[in-house]
């Protein structure tokens, strides 16, 4: 495959003595949506958090193997983990806007990174909110509290906040699981638009969502990567029986 953004080589992760990820090797292409599916506890969210080193925050975690982002191993001791998390943004299952205004939610990241000019900040706020398909809904109330937005709007605000610091990669951990169908549909369409500019990796327990939104799908089971392929292939003729059994609902 050409244009590979992330190369994972023999990655294993331990929570203390327990091995949660077992020798994962895979290639994640640039400017595509890769979905991670699998039953609860299979390691997909653990794997996702490995990509931006969020697992570092868990004291008992140990990682072996390599996670190469554009050829650089992000677990190398010389790598600046804060910069990693700027370049590899994350959107969580439960939206978590700051208890600030809509404007301040978006401007927070750029300000922390040293941006002070108001015109520049205004531009970033508008661009990010437009990219997250929420600008029209909030442009007249930018200084209202973000906590007053609906669940779907808050999630799109969180996506805008992630985009405001110009990441290359956006990780989404079940971004729509807490949302109603209309909001879910908006998030899915947004994912489809965003891949033009970003590499997106999305964890979802909703197989139909994975089928609708992604270009590639990786099936995890019991900490192992069973199969990764084009989404169309996974959902029409998967090569592994376990994958077939999972997507047809025979287990999981």
């Amino acid at each position, binding site marked *: 495959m050409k244009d590979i953004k992330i190369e994972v080589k023999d990655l294993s992760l331990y929570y203390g003595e327990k091995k949660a990820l077992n020798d994962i090797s895979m290639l994640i292409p640039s400017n595509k949506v890769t979905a991670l599916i699998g039953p609860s506890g299979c390691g997909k969210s653990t794997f996702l958090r490995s990509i931006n080193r969020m697992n570092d925050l868990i004291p008992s975690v140990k990682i072996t193997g390599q996670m190469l982002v554009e050829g650089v191993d992000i677990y190398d001791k010389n790598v600046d983990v804060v910069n990693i998390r700027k370049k590899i943004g994350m959107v969580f299952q439960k939206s978590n806007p700051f208890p600030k205004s809509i404007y301040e939610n978006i401007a927070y990241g750029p300000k922390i990174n040293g941006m002070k000019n108001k015109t520049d900040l205004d531009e970033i706020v508008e661009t990010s909110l437009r990219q997250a398909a929420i600008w029209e809904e909030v442009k007249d109330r930018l200084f209202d509290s973000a906590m007053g937005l609906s669940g779907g709007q808050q999630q799109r605000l969180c996506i805008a906040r992630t985009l405001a610091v110009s990441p290359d990669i956006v990780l989404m951990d079940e971004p729509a699981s807490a949302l109603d169908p209309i909001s879910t549909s908006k998030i899915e*369409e947004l994912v489809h638009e965003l891949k033009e500019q970003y590499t997106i990796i999305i964890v979802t327990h909703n197989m*139909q969502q994975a*089928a*609708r939104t992604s270009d590639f799908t990786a099936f995890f089971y019991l900490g192992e990567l069973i199969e990764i392929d084009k*989404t*169309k292939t996974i*959902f*029409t003729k998967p090569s592994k029986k376990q994958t077939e059994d999972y997507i047809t609902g025979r287990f999981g």
Partner: protein
Amino acid sequence: MASHLEIELEKLKNVIVKINNLAENQVFEAVGILLSEPLSDKKQVKKTENKIDKLEVKIEDICQSIFALQQPVASDLRFIMSAMQISNEIERIGDLAMSMIKLNKNINSKYELVTKFNIEEIGREVEKIVIKTNVCFQNLDAEAIGEIYILNNSIKQKATAAVQNIIDDIKTNSKSIVSGMNLIMVLRNIERMGEHCTNIAESVYFMINAKVIKHEKHTDKNAEEE
């Protein structure tokens, strides 16, 4: 902005329109040759047949993809189910047209026979029904469905009468057996084209009204009501 599913459905519709147009051209070619006015050369006819076959496979692939990845429901689901059936019917119309073109070679004194057995009228009606069916699908035109049934009934009646006349002629003139039998097969192909067109119309009805009407008996009277 159109959703991903809407884009795929539009793509599917465009491919069906394309295959429909190609099959229409094959029918015109077949009728044209029958009436001794061929429209294009053999290579072009063969190319068109290959294109039709490839497009049928492409349509199936698109439908499979949409079913697997988009979980269509309601009118979208009916559209895709119908699309698969329609493309199959169109491909059969294309095959029948090719078969007619081949049979034409074995019909001697074609012009005389065509005039004697009033074949031109039947040929023109099958051209009409194919055009009407194409428009019916493109515009989801419920009114056209009844007209298609009426045309099909007319084709059947005329073809049946012509076949009987040819058989009577063969009985009294054994030299005309080969040409006569080939002309009968051409007429049977024309009848089957009409049937495929009504099958397509029934699929369009299903798309519009979510009701299956195939295998129901269709007289001219209830065709007008539809």
